């Protein structure tokens, strides 16, 4: 019986020490991305000098750090094989710093050049907070010479 008591005390004491010594005050909550434009299956106009209308809201429980937009072709399902004609696959990869808990973003900085290959693309938006928590979302978009269906 003594031994049992000894063991229980040892056990409880060990956990007490561990749990006290290791306070978890650190942030493991991911930021939230609310992508408003472009939306799923939106058509983006090739060669539009005004740029794509990009609108999103980023939020985090602590502090935002950065977001990144990555656009790449999705021509054959997801095989990423190249087109063979004179046009060039459009690829976009750029990040911007953001801060605070909420960051509404609206810009026209993503421009699709005239020689971009039309077709299906993936548009991915990544966001990190200061602690390194990361979120991302992906939407399918179509690049076309026709006017896009999104508003300016």
């Amino acid at each position: 019986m003594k031994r049992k008591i000894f063991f229980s005390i040892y056990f409880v004491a060990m956990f007490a020490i561990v749990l006290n010594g290791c306070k978890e005050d650190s942030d493991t909550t991911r930021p939230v991305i609310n992508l408003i434009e472009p939306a799923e299956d939106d058509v983006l106009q090739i060669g539009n000098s005004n740029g794509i209308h990009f609108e999103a809201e980023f939020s985090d429980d602590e502090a935002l750090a950065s977001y990144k937009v990555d656009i790449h072709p999705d021509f054959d399902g997801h095989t990423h094989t190249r087109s063979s004609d004179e046009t060039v696959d459009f690829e976009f990869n750029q990040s911007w710093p953001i801060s605070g808990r909420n960051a509404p973003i609206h810009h026209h900085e993503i421009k699709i050049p005239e020689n971009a290959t039309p077709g299906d693309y993936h548009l991915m938006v990544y966001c990190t907070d200061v602690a390194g928590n990361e979120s991302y979302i992906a939407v399918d978009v179509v690049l076309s010479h026709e006017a896009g269906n999104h508003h300016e």
Partner: protein
Amino acid sequence: MHIRYLPVMLIVVPVFCLQMQAQEADTLKTLTLDEFVVTGSYRKSIDGSTSQAVGLADKTFLTEHFTGNLVQTLGHMAGIRSMDIGAGFAKPMIRGLGFNRIVVAENGVKQEGQQWGADHGLEIDAFNVERVVVRKGPSSLLYGSDAMGGVIEILPLPAPLQNQWYGEVALLGKSVNETLGGSLMLGVKRNAWHVKTRFSEQHFGDYRIPADTVVYLTQQMPIDGRKLKNTAGFERDASLLAEYQQSGYHAGYAVSNAFQKVGFFPGAHGVPDVSRLQDDGDSRNIDMPFSKVNHLKATTSQQLTSDDRVIRWDLGFQQNHREEWSLFHTHYATQPLPAKDPDKELAFSLSTASSALRVEWSSGEFWKHTAGWDVQYQRNSIAGYSFLLPEYKRFTTGGLWLSVFRPNHQLTVSGGVRYDFGTMNISGYQDIYLEKYLRERNYPEPVVEANKWRSYPIDRRFGDVSGSLGVVLRMSDFYVMKANIGRSFRLPGANELASNGVHHGAFRHEQGDGSLRSEHGWQLDAGFIFEREGIRLTCSPFFSWFENYIYLRPTGEWSVLPHAGQVYRYSGAEAVFAGSEAELSLALLRCLTYRLSGEYVYTHNVDEHTPMAFSPPASMRNALVFNPLKGLQLVAEMQTVATQNRIARNEERTRGANLVHLSASVHLPYADVRLSAHNLLNTAYFNHLSFYRRVEIPEPGRDIQLSIKIPFELRN
């Protein structure tokens, strides 16, 4: 301390009359006992022989929990978890440590595959496993680098006593993925010789999940027919064992080959795309992406035993060849379609040669000493149109000394030290397509320079001391108390030193750090075992402190590689792991036993003030075992897994679950039949440690399993 140095008794296994012996053949005492008593004694002998927490999976346990997958079977032991890759394959975790932090050893030789990879299972034939001893906690003293979390030792049963032909036919069926499996074993014992061969095969289709859709990255993905597309696979294993035993000399030769091929759910590779999830009308085909792996292993052991000395020498050669296939895809416009095997994305071929020498002798009445010398050499070569892990050569050698002092039956004190020396030589790798890609995009020269080297050439040397000191107190016939302190280490792996790329499965940019130091840990554990008629209670708390635990740290830096978020870099941190296992077995009536087992692991990254990734949630199993007739056993079990809210950055919280399992086994003179229902209520739940957890895919649904084993023998 090693199990094979234990003086062990013979065992009479039903029907077979197989003999269970230790390597110290000449010190054996022949006993003929009832099956259950012997099992208990063997367990007791293990309990009392090592200061570490050990778990024994004997033939009874392995039969009762047989699933065709060794890791999932061992997952029924407290403290051991299976990290599943779908329904077919899995890798083990002990007390929250997995991957390269635990060792699996078969016939005394450490299994070397691609343990670091999250989607790589263990390449061992489950049908061919007859006895397993699991050492929980630091075992670097015996096994060197990697054994920080524990060791799973797969041990063969000894040769039969009498001259005979014998064999076994085993059949396995599972409903969840329509598995059909079978195994044939044949053995012959002729005087000094014993030869045994086995062939096993398992085929399975796409597995069923209790859900119609899964939501991944805000995309709803339909699961046609509730079957997870392209998760079918098969496994084909063959082995041959030959032994020669003449007075004090024993020689063993074993060759085995394990082949596995399994498809990956296409939705788990890259951006979810509903078009790739459409039912192809065939639930048993293996389409791309898939992986295949072949593990060839040849081992020999030579042992000389005299009155006061045992010399044993184990030699092993293994080749693990793994390939991942996925339709050719590239983000770099200049990368051409490879002329040969255009869809081979990654291939790793790891060859390992190893040698272990042990000399054991007694001095005086109370002391026993062991000296050992281990050498291991590894070479990894790569192929495929993608890059993840570089080519490397690794050499390690270590010497150990272990002494055991046993002044009486009550007290055993054991301690030992070991020194290991290792070199790691990693080849550089430059990606010309990536370089062009970055130049075309006008990245500044330093960025191009830093990224075109997918792997830097690295030449490192390591020297590490490990050791342990432990005490076992047999307080009475019923109580055993243990305490152990150990220091263990692990050399950084090639992936941790030099990987650099986006893995299609992990889907993030993982980067090695060539300057990483070895991982070191101090581990303290205790054990309490109480056993008497009708009751067995064990409790084994542990506490581990790592001064340099290597983990993937999110850096907050955006990767320049296409299709990647931030860079995750292997970094060292101070870390704490603590917890306990507890098991109770209580005979309520003569034919009714209650079994309870539970475990908890607390993990903490001291530098980041967060838990560690892959922390196993607390779990508990409550079971009622009913033996109404001799040879008939019915088991009803409730498995409770707690919610895991303690997560590392960029990990998902996982809800808990209650699962009900039922099984019935019949032991007849000519056959063992077992029928079981796993997840009887078809509960949709997630396994925090599963490869498919990240993509929000629930675990397999209800699974009815039927296993039949028919042993036979022919004596003359």
